[in-house]
């Protein structure tokens, strides 16, 4: 394991930012620390960097406890949320800063900076100041600056938060490619689930200062281990009484059920349905066009659920009665979670 956190605790006044954090990261992986704001993910990143000190516990990097090693000696590259570029230095001087501090050879600095500017597509911008750059360019300067001193570990705090939607999409794939190419172990913090799923090799989900789950994007999305994780991804609808929907196993002591839009099949009354006998009737309350699909808010069995319909399917209208079939749902008891498949699906497969 390359980076290890053991029993880390950190409190700010009354606020518990880290509550017994334990995790480890393999060398060369790109890790996404994902969680809502205030869940303690940035604190974890800053403690690894040495910008904050844990109250207790050990941080181990490459087999060495680094608790008492100052930030400047840890050899970590850090990309700040707002980039924190030196605004009174040119792009060139920003990137060269870390090497100049190390008193590297002039020729080496020049070669390295030019190499990084080429890598990050910043050629020709060396003499500009950060204020003269676009958001995407600034992000790339911050990235190049963090990489210049050849860090063993790269930390990125909300690297895409300050960039507009279209450029963000491009930068995500760019960053993923770049980090894969360089093979540098990296951890990035984000509150955006899509970003984490798309970019990270592995996701660590934080909530209220604790680690909820760690795993591959597919794994955390499909097999949530806690009710928080189950309700964090997608656009979940939470319902109290899942037994009001047909053909689910009755598990005792269940508090809530979580239904993601992709678990729901919405059919018009005149459409052919495979599981008509297990469907419930609902009324469409609102319709929102989401570009790639149509999002529906449906009132069914005295609760509301969010569902989606494709653009190629027949149009539906507000107030229209539709049939709702739920393929599967998550049921929760405390912080435990379990996936229930609709029994009619199981029976169906048995028949075939």
């Amino acid at each position, binding site marked *: 394991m390359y980076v290890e956190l053991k029993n880390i605790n950190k409190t700010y006044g009354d606020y518990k930012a880290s509550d017994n954090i334990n995790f480890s990261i393999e060398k060369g992986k790109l890790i996404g620390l994902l969680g809502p704001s205030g869940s303690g993910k940035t604190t974890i990143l800053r403690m690894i960097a040495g*910008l904050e000190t844990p109250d207790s516990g050990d941080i181990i990097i490459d087999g060495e406890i680094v608790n008492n090693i100052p930030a*400047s000696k840890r050899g970590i590259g*850090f990309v*700040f949320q707002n980039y924190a570029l*030196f605004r009174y230095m040119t792009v060139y001087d920003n990137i060269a*800063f870390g090497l100049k501090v190390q008193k590297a050879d002039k020729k080496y600095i020049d070669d390295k900076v030019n190499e990084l500017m080429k890598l990050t597509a910043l050629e020709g911008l060396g003499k500009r100041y950060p204020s003269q750059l676009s958001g995407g360019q600034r992000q790339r300067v911050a990235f190049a600056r963090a990489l210049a001193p050849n860090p063993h570990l790269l930390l990125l705090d909300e690297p895409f938060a300050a960039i507009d939607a279209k450029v963000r999409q491009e930068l995500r794939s760019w960053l993923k490619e770049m980090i894969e190419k360089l093979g540098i172990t990296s951890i990035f913090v984000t509150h955006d689930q899509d970003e984490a799923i798309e970019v990270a090799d592995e996701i660590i989900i934080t909530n209220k200062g604790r680690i909820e789950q760690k795993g591959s994007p597919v794994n955390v999305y499909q097999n949530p281990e806690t009710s928080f994780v189950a309700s964090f991804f997608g656009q979940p609808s939470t319902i109290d009484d899942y037994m009001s929907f047909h053909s689910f196993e009755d598990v005792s002591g269940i508090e809530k059920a979580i239904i993601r839009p992709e678990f729901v099949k919405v059919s018009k009354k005149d459409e052919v349905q495979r599981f008509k006998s297990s469907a419930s009737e609902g009324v469409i309350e609102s319709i929102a066009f989401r570009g790639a699909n149509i999002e529906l808010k449906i009132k069914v069995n005295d609760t509301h659920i969010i569902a989606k319909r494709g653009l190629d399917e027949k149009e539906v209208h507000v107030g229209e009665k539709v049939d709702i079939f739920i393929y599967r749902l998550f049921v929760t008891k405390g912080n435990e979670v379990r996936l229930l498949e609709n029994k009619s699906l199981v029976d169906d497969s048995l028949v075939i």
Partner: protein
Amino acid sequence: MDGKRKESSLVKWLLIDISALFLGVMLLLPLGIVIWQSFKQGIAVYMKAVTDKYTVSAVLLTIEATVTAVIVNTVFGLFAAWCITKFKFKGKKLISTLIDIPVTVSPVIAGLMFMLLYGKQSALYPYLQKMHISVVFAVPGIIIATVFVTFPFISRELIPVLETHGTDEEEAAALMGAGGFTIFRKVTFPHIKWALLYGIVLCTARAMGEFGAVSILSGHLRGKTNTLPLHIEILFNEFQYVPAFAVSSILVAMAVMILVLRSVIEAVARR
């Protein structure tokens, strides 16, 4: 629409006129009088008053006190602003409030405080005597008084600038292995340069004109502990009006120089 525009242009000119009139009566007229009065009896009399040995020593003492106050307060102001904006600690609010005391306390009271602290009735006095240090009625007292009244000027200019600046750039530099002094020189200083210069200008202007606190601690020893404002007061009290105004014109000229410097700094900083 048209009526409204006419009305607002009327308001505009009315406000401009009132401001101009106020500035004329309150500032330009008195300043003009100073210049006019000091040359009333001709250049020769003016030159005589200005080159008088007591005047020259007052100018030198004023410069000495001002330069010392500016140096001390620049160093203190940088440290105070740095520690208040870059660190989190208990009592930070208290320190930040204490810095403002010199602006809220009347300079006369400041003078009296130092009189009680370093004067003959103080418990410190015998020790100071033993070390052959005289504060009251001597140059150190004048410098201490000047430092005190100009205490907050530089730190107050720096704190807001450093606060909006945040600590990210410093943290970024520290992560890349830079030491404290390198961080200050390369990252922080370029940012606060203009605010610092502006603070120094304000501090200089205030230090030159200080009267109240200095008046108490000086003892008005001509040629020894008289600063320019005190010298003017003495001349005026002796009914030597022309010399009093002539010496005043020196102080006015110094103030105008500072003002011009300030405008230049502001113009350059805005660029």
